[in-house]
């Protein structure tokens, strides 16, 4: 149920990102899609992907916003410093309070839970027929990830060849 709400929200945000006229609003809408995807990964019980998605999304969002805004944003330091300091301290306290509970739940160092990994190690050869377990994970259990990686490589090569194509080939005949 939550997943469907998230998916509808993501589709809506993606349509907004395409249709809106302002470039900055479009970037913010794309960021909303990314954060919703992060929550969707959490609901689907893939916290590792959620963390990756969160980090990459924040980085991409900052770069995109920096690229869209031409003028420098003014850095305001005078005025309201009491309020700013107060809010900062409250956020730090909340963060530390929550991270206390999170760190209590973590498995001890050097003793991973191995719930999924045990399955891969014990049944990998039987299920895939591949003796190299790394290959059995990246090309069978998690082949979808590898497809994504291959797509990233493909897109980067296309982009590189488009940027680096021999310049002025069109105008060479004229000159």
């Amino acid at each position, binding site marked *: 149920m939550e997943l469907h709400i998230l998916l509808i929200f993501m589709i809506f945000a993606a349509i907004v990102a395409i249709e809106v006229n302002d470039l900055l609003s479009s970037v913010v809408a794309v960021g909303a899609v990314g954060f919703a995807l992060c929550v969707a990964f959490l609901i689907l019980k893939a916290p590792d992907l959620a963390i990756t998605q969160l980090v990459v999304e924040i980085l991409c969002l900052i770069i995109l916003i920096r690229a869209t805004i031409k003028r420098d944003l003014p850095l305001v330091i005078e005025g309201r410093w009491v309020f700013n300091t107060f809010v900062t301290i409250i956020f730090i306290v909340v963060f530390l309070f929550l991270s206390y509970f999170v760190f209590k739940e973590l498995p001890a160092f050097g003793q991973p839970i191995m719930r999924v990994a045990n399955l891969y190690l014990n049944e990998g050869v039987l299920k895939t027929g591949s003796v*190299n377990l790394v*290959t059995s994970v990246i*090309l069978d259990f998690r082949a979808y990830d590898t*497809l994504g990686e291959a797509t990233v490589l*493909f897109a980067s*090569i296309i982009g590189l*060849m488009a940027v*680096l194509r*021999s*310049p002025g080939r069109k105008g060479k005949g004229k000159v």
Partner: protein
Amino acid sequence: MVNNKAGMTLIVKTITRLTVGLIMLFGIYIVFHGHLSPGGGFAGGVIVALSFVHLMLVFGKDFAMAKISRNLASNLESVGALMFLFVALLGFLGGSFFHNVIAKGKPFDLFSSGTIILSNISIGLKVGVGLFAIFLALVVLEMAKKE
């Protein structure tokens, strides 16, 4: 066959002529044995690409471009990507995306593990030719800058 003016000296050319085939063969070996030993499509593809880069550094741009041109490189890369996608779609015969439908065979055999070896070959083709295409694009850019 070899243009004496382009590229490096005779010593380097002779050694390269002997070794470049072996390097490429090693890359292909890594790709084909991806399910048996460390390595796989990505690593083997890089080694194959390096053999072409080697050829280009030693014999010059034109010799390597005669072996594999930029258009051929782009086309082969697309073929590799489509092949990987085809392997993925093949899984629908067994019910789901990337389902391993081909018979698994005996472990430790070369032709075992079903679709994994096909995926390795397609990824190797894609990565090898793609990296060479990047190198080619960079070299051509440098040449155009000098002119």
